[in-house]
């Protein structure tokens, strides 16, 4: 359950920002997670409820924006979406391992009150 420790860090960042802004409650957290980040969104949701208990984020909602992984094809000079780290370009069939997106693990924004 590595998602628990990731959510703990996300919540820490959210609460720090909320406190700095003078807010008393965190209403919503929005995370950006790449499809190759190694994190399972369902487990993140489960972990979220657990870590928010008895904090200023209790009852908050979690929104996860999924970032589809994409590789860069040097031959075509263009990106193509992919499922893994190494992929064949659908246009020219050259193999590319140059991942441009998909490893994101970010906190996008926080809604507070």
């Amino acid at each position, binding site marked *: 359950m590595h998602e628990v*420790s990731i959510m703990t860090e996300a919540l820490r960042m959210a609460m720090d920002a909320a406190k700095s*802004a003078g807010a008393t409650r965190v209403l919503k957290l929005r995370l950006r997670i790449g499809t190759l980040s190694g994190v399972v969104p369902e487990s993140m949701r489960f972990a979220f409820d657990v870590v928010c208990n008895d904090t200023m984020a209790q009852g908050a909602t979690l929104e996860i924006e999924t970032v589809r992984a994409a590789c860069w094809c040097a031959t075509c000079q263009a990106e193509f979406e992919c499922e893994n780290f190494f992929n064949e370009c659908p246009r020219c069939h050259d193999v590319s391992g140059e991942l441009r997106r998909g490893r994101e693990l970010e906190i*996008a924004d926080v809604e507070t009150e």
Partner: protein
Amino acid sequence: MCQECGCGNGGGDVKIGAHTHEQEHHHSHEHHDHGHGYDHAQGKQTLNLNRSLMEKNARLAERNRGFFRAKKLLVLNVVSSPGSGKTTFIRETAAKLSASLRVGVIVGDLATDNDAARLRTAGIPVVQITTGTVCHLDADMVSKAAAQLDLDQLDVLVIENVGNLVCPADYDLGEDLRVVLLSVTEGEDKPLKYPPMFHSANVAIITKKDMATAAGFDRKLALANLNRVSHHAHIFELSAKTGDGMQAWLNYLTEQNAAAKRK
């Protein structure tokens, strides 16, 4: 915090010591206060953060990198599964370079300082990090451990990471080169099973070459897999035990060290 398995919550268990029985330093996290400059308004508001959940380690790793560069050190982060031969490989590398380069080692393990003891017996300056429940080293642990070595007396600093091909992949330690080991007894498809680690490596080394025949190692297949996943990495094949293939690796390291000195 560990992105992969969540082990990092037990950070209080981490101990660092040149001699673990005499000196024990508890690992603690610093708390920085970053002001956000938002209006202290009433009611609902959305705060844009757009920050990586791994940013703290990334920041500390860059600090390490700058510090090591100022010391003209070549820093290696050696990673592999448990039992691939990291300690023997590091010991033999240090021994064979001893006439020309001084090598110091930071060793990470969940428990015991057996690996550090093996290196210390060989006369190599060693600091042990006992991570407790944590399955990887992070930049903060390395910074604290490095402070216990006389870096001015070293040319090369080798960090022997915890034996694990998953979690250490996400943690930049401030190294110049990430070196991944794959022993012939492990199976040729390891690079395909653990692509983030193998993909992130600058150097990939096939170890225990002397056992290849007994293990039924398919060299061609292993190299094909490595070339696919670690396509940009320098690949070496060697046996630290017999010394076969070591010279090419030592030559490469010597060149890299000269480059680090020029930076």
